[in-house]
């Protein structure tokens, strides 16, 4: 009896081990990187024509294609009415390219990791969104993007020509086309977005805001007379303080895809500086300190999670803030805030009108095809349709007309009565198609439109001396992570302006000393060395 029990226990254990540890022999291509040539669901198609890849794809004609499903991964939350919109969209797509689309939305903060895991596991999906500010660089070095150099022009001719060959070439990596670049704003000159109704009340006109000091004096004046107002934006370093420090100067971060590692170029000269060590940066800390002690900032802001982005449509106390220019949502903000405080109105002024900003003219966002995609040609056809077919693009981006959006003219839209962004379907244009293809809110103000025109017009920008340069962090990896920790620790406190000026002084000195100790000079030197080498070529 005893023996039987232990034998059976052992047997059970063995069975568990086998099922858990071994393949079930269904012949999965977990290790191999080459995708199977045939569609995974040949039975669904007309059986005479299952091999689509190869000769047929040269001249894609709808009749000869077999039905496929394309899977797209995007960060964010599944929009409202997803199922209904997809049904409509898929009918249209089936008609045009015999394909259906299936989107999986992954929460923002796990998106990067999930993409890497799925790529490493060889999971089958067709394409996904990525960008330099996400983990595009990592994906490229790990072979997570399909080389589409030979497929792009052939399968997505409208998109290719629309982007122009020159633009596509600027965004090549190691001479090959991986991601499809999505053109957006070239660079962000700083703008002051403020409550125009309050400004008017105190006798300010837009042309009176020329420097950051003007902005601060305005805030002092308002807060001095009306204690219920908050002078600056709530939240932690809202507005880019590094940009604020070099306001009106040509500035550029050394492209390293690591926002916390110091290294900047000024005046478009190939000389790398540590921006934290400059007088410019120090002056902006004094500026912030003056604002803090002058009562401009909500004292809770150091602990608050809310920022200009989270509170844009709910914060009626703040009178304005310096940051990236608005891209069409000032009208919506005005509408939302005037519900809380009647008469509220938002406008913006550019603080750097006279400066031609430096741009690499490279895209920040990409649509990337997965190496495990079974139907790369079809994905490109889909992207081509999104680019060229207005009807399909509208459905993909804005959902069903009447239910999710109301088209206003050719390039504007508004929400149906009583609805807002949270209650309708919407996908982000900057993940799939150029900005000029997207609609802007019909409520956008004139300054909104001027700003969009400004930041997309190449004539307002000069080409960076190091355009095309990409920093390779391998040599100073440990320094970067150490420096990154110091920067994260100090920036928030320093840039909030909290404390007395003496405290600020000592904290700033401490910050610089810690940066030195963490090896910041080595990073700067390495960046300089790589840039010098790049320029020699």
């Amino acid at each position, binding site marked *: *009896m*005893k023996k039987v*029990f*232990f034998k059976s*226990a*052992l047997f059970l*254990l063995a069975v568990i081990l086998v*099922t*858990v540890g*071994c*393949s*079930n022999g269904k012949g*999965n291509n*977990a290790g191999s990187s080459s995708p199977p040539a045939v569609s995974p669901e040949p039975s669904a198609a007309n059986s005479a024509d299952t091999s689509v890849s190869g000769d047929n794809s040269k001249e894609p004609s709808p009749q000869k294609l077999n039905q496929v499903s394309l899977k797209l991964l995007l*960060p*964010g*939350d*599944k929009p409202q009415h997803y199922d209904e919109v997809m049904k409509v969209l898929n009918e249209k797509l089936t008609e045009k390219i015999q394909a259906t689309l299936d989107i*999986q939305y992954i*929460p*923002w*903060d*796990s998106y990067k990791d*999930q993409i890497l*895991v*799925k790529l*490493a*596991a*060889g*999971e089958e999906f067709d394409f996904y969104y990525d960008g330099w500010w996400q983990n595009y660089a990592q994906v490229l070095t790990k072979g997570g993007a399909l080389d589409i150099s030979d497929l792009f022009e052939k399968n997505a001719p409208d998109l290719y020509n629309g982007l122009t060959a020159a633009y596509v070439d600027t965004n090549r990596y190691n001479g090959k086309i991986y991601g499809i670049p999505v053109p957006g704003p070239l660079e*962000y000159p700083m703008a002051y*977005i403020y409550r125009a109704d309050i400004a008017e009340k105190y006798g300010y006109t837009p042309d009176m805001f020329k420097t950051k000091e003007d902005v601060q004096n305005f805030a002092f004046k308002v807060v001095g007379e009306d204690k219920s107002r908050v002078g600056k934006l709530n*939240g932690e*370093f*809202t*507005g*880019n303080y590094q940009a604020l420090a070099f306001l009106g100067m040509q500035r550029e971060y050394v492209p390293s895809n690591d926002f916390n590692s110091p290294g900047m170029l000024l005046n478009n000269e190939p000389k790398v500086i540590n921006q934290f060590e400059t007088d410019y940066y120090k002056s902006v800390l004094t500026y912030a300190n003056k604002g803090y002690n002058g009562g401009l900032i909500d004292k809770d802001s150091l602990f608050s*999670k*809310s*920022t*200009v*982005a*989270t509170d*844009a*449509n*709910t914060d009626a106390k703040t009178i304005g803030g310096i*940051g*990236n*220019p*608005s*891209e*069409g*949502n000032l009208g919506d*903000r005005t509408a939302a805030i005037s519900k*809380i405080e009647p008469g509220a109105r938002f406008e913006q002024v550019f603080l750097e009108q006279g400066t031609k900003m430096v741009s690499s003219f490279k895209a920040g966002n990409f649509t990337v095809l997965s190496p495990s995609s079974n139907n790369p040609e079809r994905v490109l056809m889909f992207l081509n349709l999104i680019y060229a077919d207005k009807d399909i693009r509208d459905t993909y981006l804005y959902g069903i007309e009447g239910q999710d959006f109301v088209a206003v003219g050719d390039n504007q839209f508004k929400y149906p009565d009583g609805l*807002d*962004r*949270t209650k309708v379907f919407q996908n*982000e244009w*900057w993940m799939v198609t150029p900005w000029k293809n997207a609609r802007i809110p019909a409520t956008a103000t004139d300054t909104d439109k001027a700003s969009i025109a400004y930041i997309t017009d190449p004539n307002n920008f000069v080409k960076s001396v190091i355009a095309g340069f990409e920093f390779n962090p391998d040599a100073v990896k440990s320094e970067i992570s150490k420096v990154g920790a110091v920067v994260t620790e100090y920036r928030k406190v320093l840039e909030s302006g909290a404390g007395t000026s003496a405290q600020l002084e000592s904290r700033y000195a401490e910050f610089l000393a810690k940066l030195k100790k963490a090896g910041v000079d080595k990073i700067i030197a390495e960046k300089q060395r790589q840039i010098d080498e790049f320029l020699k070529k």
Partner: protein
Amino acid sequence: MVEHKSVSYRLFNSINYLFFSVIGIACLVPFLIVLGSSFEAEQNLKEAGFALIPKQFTLYSYETVFQLNSVMQSFLVSVTVTVIGTLSALLVTSLLAYPLSQREMKFRSLILGYVLITMLFSGGLVPWYILITKYLHLKDTLWVLIVPYLVNPFNMFVLKSFFETIPREIVESARIDGAGHFRSFLNIVIPLSTPGLATIGLFYALAYWNDWWLSLNFIESDKLMPVQLLLKKMISNLTYISSQVDTSKFIQVPANGVQMATTIISIGPIFLVYPYIQKYFVKGLTIGSVKG
């Protein structure tokens, strides 16, 4: 007995009470603020911030949450997974722990070593992912939320040491009366082990209820999304929005009250489990301690 009423004893006692009351309040207050805010009108939250007692009592947040049909569906998924998961995890874990608690078991130390190794090392995320999606084909099924957590080695060791405290004589006498291994396990050992099983059961129930990691990795269908993942998604997207300095990529944030209501809803059921299990839980905590 007299010395128990001495000044130093009383002083010690009152400091003790004071100290733990403070800690207790510190734990309780944030929770109460969340609870209070979930009943507060949204406009007051914006203007006055979170408060213990709502100025204007409203069920609006809860109505909003329950109007999203995905919440009820997720709730059902979470409950199903927790109930089935806890029961099957208890079964599997005790079936592993019991034989390992018997000294006469062959290869006992070998198997114990094998279980221990899984506590110390793991293959990493990618192999695990490949195993579950490519070999076990569990992706996007209810089972993927249950199977990976069936055996927790730590829980197994706790249960094993609990089984070891049951006097061998009791089991032996059952054997003499003709009971086999299974019968003595089911009829003798299990009833004697309720404190241990309740403790481990609570651990498992908590693990299943609170888990969003499995669903984040393996669940795509909305119908199988547990409530914790909904919460996780909400917070995750919120963090992302907060990290944006510009409003261009602006996405509407769920209202504060709705966030609070979702939090309350997601902790609700598991909160109710504690009072019932607590008496076993205290006993369970003494597992392994020296008994007089």
